[in-house]
Protein backbone atom coordinates (compact mmCIF):
# COMPACT_ATOMS: atom_id res chain seq x y z
CA UNK A 1 0.00 0.00 0.00
CA UNK A 2 0.98 3.62 -0.43
CA UNK A 3 3.25 5.19 2.17
CA UNK A 4 2.10 8.65 1.16
CA UNK A 5 0.85 10.89 3.94
CA UNK A 6 -2.86 10.70 4.69
CA UNK A 7 -4.96 13.26 2.84
CA UNK A 8 -6.72 14.96 5.77
CA UNK A 9 -3.46 16.32 7.21
CA UNK A 10 -4.43 19.66 5.75
CA UNK A 11 -7.84 20.55 4.45
CA UNK A 12 -7.88 21.91 0.90
CA UNK A 13 -8.54 25.34 2.32
CA UNK A 14 -5.67 25.13 4.82
CA UNK A 15 -3.44 23.78 2.07
CA UNK A 16 -4.28 26.69 -0.22
CA UNK A 17 -3.64 29.22 2.53
CA UNK A 18 -0.29 27.57 3.24
CA UNK A 19 0.66 27.65 -0.43
CA UNK A 20 -0.28 31.30 -0.63
CA UNK A 21 1.88 32.05 2.41
CA UNK A 22 4.72 29.96 1.04
CA UNK A 23 4.70 27.76 4.16
CA UNK A 24 7.50 25.18 3.63
CA UNK A 25 5.71 22.38 5.55
CA UNK A 26 2.52 22.83 3.53
CA UNK A 27 4.45 22.99 0.28
CA UNK A 28 6.24 19.74 1.11
CA UNK A 29 2.95 18.09 2.01
CA UNK A 30 1.29 19.45 -1.11
CA UNK A 31 4.03 18.18 -3.42
CA UNK A 32 4.00 14.72 -1.83
CA UNK A 33 0.26 14.37 -2.23
CA UNK A 34 -0.32 16.27 -5.45
CA UNK A 35 2.62 15.04 -7.55
CA UNK A 36 1.51 11.40 -7.84
CA UNK A 37 -2.07 12.46 -8.54
CA UNK A 38 -1.04 14.86 -11.27
CA UNK A 39 1.36 12.32 -12.70
CA UNK A 40 -1.51 9.84 -12.89
CA UNK A 41 -3.75 12.49 -14.44
CA UNK A 42 -1.32 13.17 -17.29
CA UNK A 43 -0.49 9.49 -17.76
CA UNK A 44 -4.13 8.78 -18.50
CA UNK A 45 -3.38 10.12 -21.96
CA UNK A 46 -1.08 7.76 -23.79
CA UNK A 47 0.17 10.64 -25.92
CA UNK A 48 1.34 12.49 -22.82
CA UNK A 49 2.60 9.49 -20.89
CA UNK A 50 6.29 10.01 -21.70
CA UNK A 51 6.05 13.68 -20.70
CA UNK A 52 3.88 13.15 -17.62
CA UNK A 53 6.73 13.91 -15.21
CA UNK A 54 7.61 17.18 -16.97
CA UNK A 55 3.96 18.22 -17.12
CA UNK A 56 3.54 17.44 -13.43
CA UNK A 57 6.50 19.63 -12.54
CA UNK A 58 5.24 22.44 -14.76
CA UNK A 59 1.85 22.19 -13.09
CA UNK A 60 3.31 22.29 -9.59
CA UNK A 61 5.49 25.26 -10.50
CA UNK A 62 2.42 27.03 -11.87
CA UNK A 63 0.32 26.26 -8.80
CA UNK A 64 2.94 27.77 -6.51
CA UNK A 65 3.52 30.70 -8.84
CA UNK A 66 -0.16 31.60 -9.13
CA UNK A 67 -1.49 30.47 -5.74
CA UNK A 68 -2.27 34.08 -4.87
CA UNK A 69 -4.84 34.21 -7.67
CA UNK A 70 -6.83 31.18 -6.47
CA UNK A 71 -9.91 32.30 -4.59
CA UNK A 72 -10.74 29.13 -2.69
CA UNK A 73 -11.49 25.70 -4.16
CA UNK A 74 -7.97 24.41 -4.60
CA UNK A 75 -8.54 21.21 -6.58
CA UNK A 76 -10.94 22.54 -9.21
CA UNK A 77 -8.38 25.26 -9.81
CA UNK A 78 -5.56 22.73 -10.08
CA UNK A 79 -7.67 20.72 -12.51
CA UNK A 80 -8.12 23.74 -14.73
CA UNK A 81 -4.35 24.39 -14.77
CA UNK A 82 -3.53 20.72 -15.46
CA UNK A 83 -6.12 20.53 -18.22
CA UNK A 84 -4.84 23.69 -19.89
CA UNK A 85 -1.29 22.33 -19.76
CA UNK A 86 -2.45 19.07 -21.35
CA UNK A 87 -4.34 20.96 -24.04
CA UNK A 88 -1.32 23.12 -24.74
CA UNK A 89 0.89 20.02 -24.99
CA UNK A 90 -1.47 18.42 -27.48
CA UNK A 91 -1.54 21.58 -29.57
CA UNK A 92 2.24 21.75 -29.61
CA UNK A 93 2.67 18.25 -31.05
CA UNK A 94 4.91 18.51 -34.13
CA UNK A 95 3.12 18.07 -37.47
CA UNK A 96 4.57 14.60 -38.02
CA UNK A 97 3.16 13.44 -34.71
CA UNK A 98 -0.43 13.23 -33.70
CA UNK A 99 -2.49 12.13 -30.76
CA UNK A 100 -2.26 8.40 -30.06
CA UNK A 101 -5.10 6.42 -31.61
CA UNK A 102 -6.12 5.11 -28.22
CA UNK A 103 -6.56 8.65 -26.89
CA UNK A 104 -8.52 9.67 -29.97
CA UNK A 105 -10.85 6.72 -29.51
CA UNK A 106 -11.48 7.57 -25.87
CA UNK A 107 -12.18 11.21 -26.67
CA UNK A 108 -14.46 10.11 -29.51
CA UNK A 109 -16.29 7.89 -27.01
CA UNK A 110 -16.81 10.90 -24.76
CA UNK A 111 -18.01 13.03 -27.66
CA UNK A 112 -20.47 10.28 -28.58
CA UNK A 113 -21.80 10.44 -25.02
CA UNK A 114 -22.05 14.22 -25.28
CA UNK A 115 -24.31 14.06 -28.28
CA UNK A 116 -26.40 11.15 -27.01
CA UNK A 117 -29.12 11.28 -24.41
CA UNK A 118 -27.59 8.38 -22.52
CA UNK A 119 -27.49 8.27 -18.73
CA UNK A 120 -25.13 5.31 -18.73
CA UNK A 121 -21.53 6.52 -18.30
CA UNK A 122 -18.76 4.93 -20.32
CA UNK A 123 -15.66 4.30 -18.18
CA UNK A 124 -13.49 4.19 -21.30
CA UNK A 125 -14.58 7.64 -22.42
CA UNK A 126 -12.15 10.49 -21.78
CA UNK A 127 -13.25 14.11 -21.95
CA UNK A 128 -10.93 16.37 -24.00
CA UNK A 129 -8.65 18.48 -21.80
CA UNK A 130 -10.48 21.66 -22.79
CA UNK A 131 -13.66 20.21 -21.27
CA UNK A 132 -11.84 19.32 -18.06
CA UNK A 133 -10.49 22.86 -17.91
CA UNK A 134 -14.00 24.23 -18.21
CA UNK A 135 -15.21 21.77 -15.59
CA UNK A 136 -12.55 23.07 -13.19
CA UNK A 137 -13.85 26.61 -13.62
CA UNK A 138 -17.48 25.56 -13.17
CA UNK A 139 -16.72 23.44 -10.11
CA UNK A 140 -15.10 26.45 -8.49
CA UNK A 141 -18.43 28.26 -8.76
CA UNK A 142 -20.29 25.60 -6.74
CA UNK A 143 -20.80 26.02 -3.03
CA UNK A 144 -18.46 24.03 -0.81
CA UNK A 145 -21.36 21.84 0.34
CA UNK A 146 -22.52 21.11 -3.18
CA UNK A 147 -19.04 20.21 -4.35
CA UNK A 148 -18.42 18.01 -1.33
CA UNK A 149 -21.62 16.05 -1.98
CA UNK A 150 -20.92 15.87 -5.70
CA UNK A 151 -17.42 14.52 -5.13
CA UNK A 152 -18.67 11.89 -2.70
CA UNK A 153 -21.33 10.84 -5.19
CA UNK A 154 -19.06 10.56 -8.23
CA UNK A 155 -15.84 9.31 -6.66
CA UNK A 156 -17.01 5.70 -6.59
CA UNK A 157 -18.16 3.34 -9.27
CA UNK A 158 -21.00 2.53 -9.13
CA UNK A 159 -22.05 5.94 -7.84
CA UNK A 160 -22.15 6.24 -4.07
CA UNK A 161 -25.76 6.01 -2.79
CA UNK A 162 -27.32 9.13 -1.31
CA UNK A 163 -27.92 7.32 1.99
CA UNK A 164 -24.19 6.81 2.38
CA UNK A 165 -23.43 10.42 1.44
CA UNK A 166 -25.95 11.51 4.06
CA UNK A 167 -24.22 9.40 6.71
CA UNK A 168 -20.77 10.64 5.74
CA UNK A 169 -21.84 14.27 5.86
CA UNK A 170 -24.23 13.84 8.80
CA UNK A 171 -27.15 15.19 6.81
CA UNK A 172 -30.52 13.68 5.81
CA UNK A 173 -30.57 11.58 2.64
CA UNK A 174 -32.91 14.06 0.98
CA UNK A 175 -30.50 16.90 1.63
CA UNK A 176 -27.64 14.88 0.12
CA UNK A 177 -29.76 14.19 -2.94
CA UNK A 178 -30.69 17.86 -3.26
CA UNK A 179 -27.09 19.07 -3.03
CA UNK A 180 -25.94 16.66 -5.73
CA UNK A 181 -28.94 17.50 -7.89
CA UNK A 182 -28.28 21.24 -7.60
CA UNK A 183 -24.60 20.76 -8.38
CA UNK A 184 -25.31 18.64 -11.44
CA UNK A 185 -27.94 21.07 -12.67
CA UNK A 186 -25.53 23.95 -12.27
CA UNK A 187 -22.78 22.15 -14.18
CA UNK A 188 -25.05 21.01 -16.95
CA UNK A 189 -26.50 24.48 -17.41
CA UNK A 190 -23.04 26.04 -17.34
CA UNK A 191 -21.76 23.75 -20.10
CA UNK A 192 -24.90 24.08 -22.20
CA UNK A 193 -24.96 27.84 -21.84
CA UNK A 194 -21.35 28.05 -23.04
CA UNK A 195 -22.01 25.67 -25.92
CA UNK A 196 -24.95 27.72 -27.13
CA UNK A 197 -22.89 30.93 -27.35
Amino acid at each position, binding site marked *: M*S*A*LPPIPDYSDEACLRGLQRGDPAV*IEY*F*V*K*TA*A*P*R*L*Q*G*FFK*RWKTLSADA*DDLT*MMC*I*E*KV*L*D*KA*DTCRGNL*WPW*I*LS*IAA*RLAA*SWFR*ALPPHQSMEGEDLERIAA*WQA*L*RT*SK*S*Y*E*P*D*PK*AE*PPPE*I*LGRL*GQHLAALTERQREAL*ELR*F*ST*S*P*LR*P*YEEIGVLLSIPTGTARKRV*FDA*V*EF*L*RNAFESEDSQ
Partner: protein
Amino acid sequence: MKQETNEASPAWLTTTVQKYCDLKKLPEAEAEEAFLANCQAAAARGLCLRQMRAERKGMGRVRVPLREYIEGIAARAGVLVAPFFEAYGVAQPPPPDEASARGLARLARMIGMNEEEVIAGIRLGFDPSWTEPMASLGRDETLQVDALRTGTGRGVSAAATAAIAAAQAVFQEPEI
Protein backbone atom coordinates in the same frame (compact mmCIF):
# COMPACT_ATOMS: atom_id res chain seq x y z
CA MET B 1 -24.39 -2.36 -4.11
CA LYS B 2 -27.45 -1.23 -5.97
CA GLN B 3 -26.67 1.25 -8.73
CA GLU B 4 -28.60 4.45 -8.28
CA THR B 5 -29.41 6.67 -11.17
CA ASN B 6 -29.09 10.38 -10.77
CA GLU B 7 -31.65 11.46 -13.32
CA ALA B 8 -30.21 14.94 -13.56
CA SER B 9 -26.77 13.83 -14.69
CA PRO B 10 -26.33 12.79 -18.30
CA ALA B 11 -23.61 10.24 -19.03
CA TRP B 12 -21.15 12.77 -20.50
CA LEU B 13 -21.33 14.88 -17.34
CA THR B 14 -21.07 11.89 -15.00
CA THR B 15 -18.01 10.68 -16.90
CA THR B 16 -16.43 14.14 -16.84
CA VAL B 17 -16.97 14.67 -13.12
CA GLN B 18 -15.67 11.17 -12.43
CA LYS B 19 -12.41 12.08 -14.21
CA TYR B 20 -12.06 15.07 -11.90
CA CYS B 21 -12.68 12.83 -8.90
CA ASP B 22 -9.97 10.48 -10.19
CA LEU B 23 -7.53 13.38 -10.02
CA LYS B 24 -8.18 13.70 -6.30
CA LYS B 25 -7.56 10.03 -5.62
CA LEU B 26 -4.13 8.99 -4.45
CA PRO B 27 -2.57 6.41 -6.73
CA GLU B 28 -1.57 3.17 -5.06
CA ALA B 29 1.99 3.31 -6.32
CA GLU B 30 4.32 5.56 -4.43
CA ALA B 31 6.08 8.28 -6.41
CA GLU B 32 9.82 7.87 -6.82
CA GLU B 33 12.02 9.92 -4.51
CA ALA B 34 13.93 11.51 -7.38
CA PHE B 35 10.70 12.58 -9.04
CA LEU B 36 9.38 14.05 -5.80
CA ALA B 37 12.64 15.92 -5.31
CA ASN B 38 12.27 17.41 -8.79
CA CYS B 39 8.69 18.39 -7.96
CA GLN B 40 9.85 20.09 -4.76
CA ALA B 41 12.37 22.01 -6.86
CA ALA B 42 9.56 23.00 -9.24
CA ALA B 43 7.51 24.23 -6.29
CA ALA B 44 10.47 26.28 -5.08
CA ARG B 45 10.79 27.81 -8.55
CA GLY B 46 7.11 28.70 -8.46
CA LEU B 47 7.61 30.60 -5.21
CA CYS B 48 10.66 32.38 -6.63
CA LEU B 49 8.67 33.42 -9.70
CA ARG B 50 6.21 35.19 -7.45
CA GLN B 51 9.05 37.10 -5.80
CA MET B 52 10.63 37.97 -9.14
CA ARG B 53 7.34 39.20 -10.55
CA ALA B 54 6.82 41.40 -7.50
CA GLU B 55 10.37 42.73 -7.80
CA ARG B 56 9.92 43.52 -11.47
CA LYS B 57 6.84 45.61 -10.80
CA GLY B 58 8.99 48.09 -8.96
CA MET B 59 11.84 48.00 -11.45
CA GLY B 60 10.31 48.76 -14.84
CA ARG B 61 12.20 48.82 -18.10
CA VAL B 62 15.98 48.83 -18.24
CA ARG B 63 18.05 48.84 -21.40
CA VAL B 64 20.12 45.69 -20.92
CA PRO B 65 20.22 42.27 -22.59
CA LEU B 66 17.36 40.04 -21.53
CA ARG B 67 19.53 37.56 -19.73
CA GLU B 68 21.19 40.28 -17.64
CA TYR B 69 17.83 41.83 -16.90
CA ILE B 70 16.45 38.56 -15.56
CA GLU B 71 19.62 37.95 -13.56
CA GLY B 72 19.25 41.44 -12.10
CA ILE B 73 15.63 40.86 -11.13
CA ALA B 74 16.54 37.57 -9.50
CA ALA B 75 19.40 39.17 -7.58
CA ARG B 76 17.16 41.96 -6.32
CA ALA B 77 14.51 39.45 -5.33
CA GLY B 78 17.15 37.39 -3.52
CA VAL B 79 16.55 34.22 -5.51
CA LEU B 80 18.92 32.01 -7.47
CA VAL B 81 18.50 32.21 -11.21
CA ALA B 82 20.56 29.09 -12.01
CA PRO B 83 17.72 26.59 -11.30
CA PHE B 84 15.52 28.51 -13.74
CA PHE B 85 18.13 28.57 -16.48
CA GLU B 86 18.65 24.84 -16.02
CA ALA B 87 14.93 24.03 -16.00
CA TYR B 88 14.15 26.32 -18.93
CA GLY B 89 17.09 25.23 -21.07
CA VAL B 90 18.97 28.53 -21.00
CA ALA B 91 22.57 27.75 -21.90
CA GLN B 92 25.79 29.68 -21.39
CA PRO B 93 27.31 31.74 -22.87
CA PRO B 94 25.25 34.63 -24.26
CA PRO B 95 24.03 35.64 -26.79
CA PRO B 96 21.16 33.17 -26.70
CA ASP B 97 20.66 30.44 -29.24
CA GLU B 98 17.09 29.50 -30.19
CA ALA B 99 16.52 27.17 -27.24
CA SER B 100 17.95 29.67 -24.78
CA ALA B 101 15.90 32.48 -26.27
CA ARG B 102 12.79 30.35 -25.89
CA GLY B 103 13.63 29.63 -22.25
CA LEU B 104 14.43 33.25 -21.48
CA ALA B 105 11.21 34.39 -23.15
CA ARG B 106 9.14 31.90 -21.15
CA LEU B 107 10.73 33.08 -17.95
CA ALA B 108 10.37 36.74 -18.92
CA ARG B 109 6.70 36.27 -19.74
CA MET B 110 6.10 34.61 -16.40
CA ILE B 111 7.56 37.56 -14.53
CA GLY B 112 5.35 39.94 -16.46
CA MET B 113 7.41 41.16 -19.42
CA ASN B 114 5.67 41.81 -22.71
CA GLU B 115 6.73 40.66 -26.16
CA GLU B 116 8.36 43.90 -27.24
CA GLU B 117 10.45 44.17 -24.10
CA VAL B 118 11.62 40.61 -24.59
CA ILE B 119 12.54 41.10 -28.23
CA ALA B 120 14.39 44.31 -27.42
CA GLY B 121 16.26 42.47 -24.66
CA ILE B 122 17.26 39.70 -27.02
CA ARG B 123 18.44 42.17 -29.65
CA LEU B 124 20.54 43.91 -27.03
CA GLY B 125 22.11 40.55 -26.24
CA PHE B 126 23.42 40.42 -29.77
CA ASP B 127 24.21 44.09 -30.17
CA PRO B 128 24.56 46.12 -26.94
CA SER B 129 24.88 49.34 -28.97
CA TRP B 130 21.51 48.83 -30.64
CA THR B 131 19.09 51.65 -29.93
CA GLU B 132 15.45 50.92 -29.37
CA PRO B 133 13.34 52.60 -32.08
CA MET B 134 10.99 54.38 -29.71
CA ALA B 135 13.90 56.04 -27.99
CA SER B 136 15.92 56.88 -31.08
CA LEU B 137 13.31 58.83 -33.05
CA GLY B 138 15.62 58.64 -36.04
CA ARG B 139 14.83 58.62 -39.73
CA ASP B 140 14.77 54.83 -39.83
CA GLU B 141 12.23 54.49 -37.08
CA THR B 142 9.73 52.56 -39.17
CA LEU B 143 12.42 50.18 -40.31
CA GLN B 144 13.60 49.71 -36.74
CA VAL B 145 10.10 49.07 -35.40
CA ASP B 146 9.78 46.44 -38.06
CA ALA B 147 13.13 45.04 -37.04
CA LEU B 148 12.08 45.00 -33.40
CA ARG B 149 8.90 43.15 -34.16
CA THR B 150 10.05 40.68 -36.74
CA GLY B 151 13.73 40.38 -36.25
CA THR B 152 14.44 41.35 -39.81
CA GLY B 153 15.95 44.53 -41.09
CA ARG B 154 19.27 46.25 -41.26
CA GLY B 155 22.08 44.82 -39.19
CA VAL B 156 20.22 41.86 -37.71
CA SER B 157 22.22 38.66 -37.87
CA ALA B 158 20.68 35.32 -38.77
CA ALA B 159 21.34 34.10 -35.23
CA ALA B 160 19.51 37.08 -33.75
CA THR B 161 16.63 36.60 -36.16
CA ALA B 162 16.30 32.95 -35.14
CA ALA B 163 16.46 33.82 -31.43
CA ILE B 164 13.82 36.54 -31.83
CA ALA B 165 11.54 34.19 -33.76
CA ALA B 166 11.88 31.58 -31.00
CA ALA B 167 10.99 34.17 -28.38
CA GLN B 168 8.03 35.42 -30.38
CA ALA B 169 6.70 31.87 -30.68
CA VAL B 170 6.49 31.76 -26.88
CA PHE B 171 4.10 34.70 -26.93
CA GLN B 172 1.88 32.96 -29.45
CA GLU B 173 1.18 30.19 -26.94
CA PRO B 174 -1.88 30.65 -24.74
CA GLU B 175 -1.00 31.79 -21.25
CA ILE B 176 -1.72 29.18 -18.60
